[in-house]
């Protein structure tokens, strides 16, 4: 469960005030898969960082599982865009997945089991002894996803996680995220700039306006739960929804606003 109420964020620095998030209100019910799309520089990453408790809001309120966020909330995991920088290069894959569990004080055997299960879920059982930098970009992002799953979060945030991988890997990872979400039943907020991806993945797409950000459209994606790269993407309803989101984004982009950090 995720609630955002009148969120407002202003960056104040170097004598320049930049409004990253204007007035944002939405909530994601327990177990929903919601995608957030918006034109570049609309404050998507800012929103995610506030939700994760990494950045204080200027005003407004953010709640995770009913509790106001003031610091990184327990039970919330984040998969960052920069997979190469979010994994510990000096730890092996399995150690990377286990470290957050170790921080919770979990016993060794339990840690092992959870890590093994998570790595199996992302198809990386064989790579547990490798170092992250020995893996391809897509595999590194799988490790980051496995780490998030093993943490057993109630809420999972993903910040453009596939922006830096090639198209085929991306399709695989999209299906992986769908299956992980279905299997572990987390509340998932997926931030992306890719409209196709948002419509393909989510049960719902939240379209943000250009900065200062508000919710421009909140769209339910009524595609069947079983999705497939080939059939879903050629579905007439998919094309229709995609066009709808696209048109909306083109419209909010038009009044070119001042630049803000993405």
């Amino acid at each position, binding site marked *: 469960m995720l609630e955002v109420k009148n969120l407002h964020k202003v960056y104040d620095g170097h004598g320049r005030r930049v409004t990253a998030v204007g007035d944002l209100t939405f909530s994601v019910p327990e177990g929903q898969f919601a995608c957030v799309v918006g034109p570049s520089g609309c404050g998507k990453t800012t929103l995610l960082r506030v939700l*994760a*408790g*990494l950045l204080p809001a200027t005003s407004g309120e953010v709640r995770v599982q009913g509790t106001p966020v003031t610091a*990184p909330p*327990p039970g*919330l*995991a*984040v998969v*960052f865009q*920069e997979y190469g*920088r*979010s994994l*510990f*290069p*000096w*730890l092996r894959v399995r150690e990377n997945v286990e*470290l*957050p569990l*170790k*921080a*919770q004080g979990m016993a060794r055997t339990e840690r092992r089991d959870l890590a093994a299960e998570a790595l199996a879920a992302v198809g990386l059982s064989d790579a547990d002894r490798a*170092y992250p*930098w*020995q893996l391809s*970009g897509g595999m590194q992002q799988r490790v980051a996803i496995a*780490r998030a799953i093993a*943490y057993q979060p109630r809420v999972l945030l993903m910040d453009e996680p596939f922006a830096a991988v090639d198209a085929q890997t991306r399709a695989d990872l999209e299906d992986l995220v769908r299956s992980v979400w279905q299997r572990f039943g987390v509340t998932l907020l997926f931030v992306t700039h890719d409209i196709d991806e948002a419509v393909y993945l989510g049960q719902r797409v939240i379209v943000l306006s250009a900065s200062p950000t508000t919710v421009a459209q909140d769209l339910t994606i009524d595609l069947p739960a079983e999705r497939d790269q080939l059939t879903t993407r050629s579905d007439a309803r998919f094309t229709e929804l995609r066009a709808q989101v696209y048109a909306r984004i083109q419209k909010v982009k038009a009044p070119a606003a001042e630049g803000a950090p993405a």
Partner: protein
Amino acid sequence: MLWRVLLAVGLPVVLIAAWWFGSSGSESFYWPSLSTIVDTFGPTWTWDMFQEQVFPSLWRLVVGYLLAVLLGVALGALIGTFRSVRSLLEPVLEFLRAFPPPVLVPAAILISGIGDRTKILVIVFGCVWPVLLNTIEGVRGRDEVLSDTCRTYGITGTLRLRHLVLRAASPQIITGARQALPLAIILMVISEMMAANEGLGFTVLQFQRGFQIPEMWSGVLLLGLIGIVLSLLFRLAERSLLGWYHGQRAGQREW
């Protein structure tokens, strides 16, 4: 592989050969031929001599060096993490750093005599700076995404110190430690030349004062060899500690 070995040993071999043949007919009392020095080496540096003069020196060197690294890393982690500590300590550190360490020897002798303690102190004082400054930079320059990762996953306290702060700074820490190593050897010798009744530096000086010139040169040679062995040991340690770092950099060049 063979080519790399040839490249690595090529120049030293040429230099040694030049020294050997260039000095072979030397009549000079102060510049004995290399063959004379090598001949003197065996009889001079016997096992007894090692036990009496060399090992005590090495002991002080190792203890002083390790203490300096430990102190530098601990202080550096503290200063690099907390801005207030940094503001508090920086002026004092800048002042202390300006001292050439050998200047401390006379004062240190007055306070703690000519025993091991004085010499170790001098080594620590000289070697701590490169380690400290590099550690501070390393700790401050760690990756933000990795810091955020630690925050979201509740990785705090000693776990964070061990797995994020120190490991992220380890390439710089190693760089500082590498710079400190020759300093440690220099300070070991200097402290023994100024105040000692045993040790390598003391012995070399004794030979010089006794006009045992080939013996003196053999001591210089021994110091050089110790330097080489220590830097080889250092490289071994570095390889095991920074395997990830070199691997990652090699990987980045590939992709």
